[in-house]
């Protein structure tokens, strides 16, 4: 595995060489037609980009040449100079010099000295005649090489297709592996094992090809924050971190709107006006942080502000008013559970909450986007001190860790992202409270429901649970969604496994209870349960 540093260098090299090719092309066009403004604009842009890229990578001498060249092209553009005669000759030399310098960087050689060129460029800027050394250009011509870029641009659609094919391949591979064990032929088993390793590597490579830096999204935010802040008359200092964390490009695409929403919200509602801040004893300038980090296999993206925070009490009141929770039950809920109400569909549309707590236009939309990725959205807040939204995202969409279990002699899978723990309990550990089974798991009371009953057709409320129905040891999966824990009684735990999820095909894709299907090694179809939808179903059917 190449280091990040080296990967950046290769990308710089590929882009720089491509820029050099384009420069050579455009400057020839300009020679043919000195008034070709399109070629001129391109040259100016290419020089500018090369300048920034080179400086960012620490190749200051290349940056310096590009900077000087940019200046001259700027002068030509503003019609203060004309592309002809000695000026043209120097610029041609300049482009050649850039090519030579880039190649030198690529070959790890000493970058050629560009002082003569820089002097000439300076003279041109001052309107003086450059000192030309004819032999330099000739020598360059003799050693000129043709270069092809090391970088390939590829449509994401093609990568999607590749990833889908790999997914199919893995399903078949698992099938072949199972069959080879059943047949018991050692030659077959050996090649099946080899196939296993190769496909694993193939999958890893394809996933790797899809990774992009989180920075490619985060770096767009300084502008967004500036605009929102000036519209809202706030003073905001934005800090970015973790731009080099890598994530699947499509995941980044899907969370773009969600992140935009959270950032706008933070500036518009989270942070106070300078006057309010000073009154509260805070600096007039609000702090907004956008950070990315990795945690195990997940990527965490956080939006943190030091604004007014979320008023838990007003959220609690609103939740009761909207009938999301009983008055008594609401009093029992801890702050975390109360804040989770902010993600309820439509909840945040309540204007009163928006004004009082300063939060929440359409947080449910953000939540849905994260759910669709199998990720999690968390919110932490201290009243008067600020709010942090945390997006927990998978690195890749292709493969998900899942827990396989059996119900009515069929296999089902549940994504690990939403699985808290698995427990086996005896009837004595279960209590009936208000028609619901409850179990104490890690010091917390968790409602427990028979998955079989929950999945039975019909939307009528579940029958009140009785102790009599639980006989013997119960295998229970504790799932967690939006800070709500729920225990699901299943027939038997099977195993933990990485699965490739195929989306549900039409017309069954309207049933949101299932996030998709996967094929097991045995060829058996296995339904993948969607924990958010399952939790909603439970809430709708209890009582």
């Amino acid at each position, binding site marked *: 595995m190449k280091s990040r540093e080296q990967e950046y260098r290769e990308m710089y090299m590929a882009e720089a060489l491509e820029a050099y090719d384009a420069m050579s092309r455009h400057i020839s066009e300009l020679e043919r037609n000195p008034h070709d403004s399109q070629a001129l604009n391109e040259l100016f842009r290419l020089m500018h980009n090369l300048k920034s890229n080179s400086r960012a990578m620490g190749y200051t001498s290349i940056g310096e040449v590009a900077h000087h060249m940019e200046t001259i092209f700027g002068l030509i553009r503003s019609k203060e100079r004309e592309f002809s005669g000695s000026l043209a000759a120097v610029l041609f030399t300049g482009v050649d010099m850039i090519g030579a310098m880039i190649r030198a960087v690529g070959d790890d050689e000493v970058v050629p000295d560009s002082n003569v060129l820089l002097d000439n460029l300076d003279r041109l800027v001052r309107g003086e005649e450059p000192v030309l050394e004819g032999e330099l250009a000739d020598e360059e011509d003799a050693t000129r090489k043709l270069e092809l870029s090391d970088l390939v641009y590829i449509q994401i659609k093609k990568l999607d297709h590749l990833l889908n094919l790999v997914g*199919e391949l893995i*399903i*078949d591979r698992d099938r072949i592996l199972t069959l080879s064990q059943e047949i018991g032929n050692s030659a077959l088993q050996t090649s099946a094992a080899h196939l296993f390793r190769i496909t694993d590597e193939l999958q890893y490579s394809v996933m790797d090809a899809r990774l992009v830096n989180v920075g490619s999204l985060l770096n767009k935010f300084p502008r967004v924050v500036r605009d929102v802040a000036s519209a809202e008359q706030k003073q905001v200092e934005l800090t970015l971190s973790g731009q080099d964390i890598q994530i699947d490009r499509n995941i980044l695409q899907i969370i773009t709107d969600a992140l935009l929403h959270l950032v706008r919200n933070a500036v518009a509602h989270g942070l106070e006006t300078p006057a309010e801040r000073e009154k509260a004893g805070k600096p007039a300038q609000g702090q907004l942080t956008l950070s990315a980090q990795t945690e195990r296999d997940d990527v965490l993206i956080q939006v943190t502000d030091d604004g007014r925070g979320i008023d838990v009490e007003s959220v609690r009141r609103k939740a009761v008013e909207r009938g999301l929770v009983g008055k008594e039950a609401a009093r029992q809920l801890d702050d975390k559970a109360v804040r989770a109400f902010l993600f309820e569909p439509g909840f945040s549309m309540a204007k009163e909450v928006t004004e009082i707590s300063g939060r929440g236009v359409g947080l449910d939309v953000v939540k849905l986007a994260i759910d669709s990725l199998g990720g999690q959205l968390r919110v932490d807040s201290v009243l008067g001190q600020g709010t942090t939204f945390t997006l927990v995202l998978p690195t890749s969409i292709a493969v998900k860790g899942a827990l396989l279990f059996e119900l*009515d002699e*069929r296999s089902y899978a549940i994504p690990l992202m939403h699985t808290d723990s698995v427990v086996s309990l005896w009837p004595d550990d279960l209590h009936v409270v208000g028609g619901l089974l409850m179990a104490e798991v890690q010091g917390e009371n968790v409602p427990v429901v028979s998955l079989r009953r929950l*999945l*039975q*057709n*019909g*939307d009528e409320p579940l029958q009140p649970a009785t102790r009599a129905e639980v006989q013997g040891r119960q295998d229970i999966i504790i799932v967690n969604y939006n800070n709500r824990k729920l225990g699901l009684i299943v027939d038997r735990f099977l195993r933990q496994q990485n699965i490739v999820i*195929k989306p*549900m*095909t*039409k*017309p*069954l894709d*309207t*049933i949101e*209870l*299932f996030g998709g*299907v996967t*094929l097991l090694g045995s*060829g*058996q*179809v*296995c*339904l993948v349960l969607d924990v958010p939808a399952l939790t909603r179903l439970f809430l709708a059917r209890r009582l």
Partner: protein
Amino acid sequence: MPDAELTTDKKNKPDTIIQLIVFRLGEEEYGLRIEQVKEVTVTPEIARMPKTPPFVKGIANLRGDIIAIIDLEERFRLRPADEELPTVSYTLAIEAKDYTIGIVVREVPQPLSVPVSSIEKAPEFIQDININDKYIEGIVKIDGRIIIVLDMLKLLTPNEIMQLQPR
């Protein structure tokens, strides 16, 4: 449709032969145009899918494609409620507009060539049977058999299939 128009239609192309796949549902014989049928296979193992109408038998793996399998006898109540499907049944994979779906039948479906002219528009009595006439393309009377030709594309819109879909 007015009768006059039908008659002229017949006269224009009296010799075109079309192929039907004929299968039995309940007591009657039904047919589909062969181009709508992707393949006929012994019904693969079906995974029952909770929260779907009873006539949706579940999903099955058909050569790597996951397709829904539906039972039209149950859908149109052509079979006594207590009678189950036989152990070995057959599945017609039908290509609907943008997906494939399986229809399970109890007997091996048979191909049958009929002249287009033998397809008649559904007469009034069709109202008496359970299948709504909007799914019926026509009736074929041939050698004393009566075959009801279904218009699968209408029958298999997602809305039709999921009409009883719980929320």
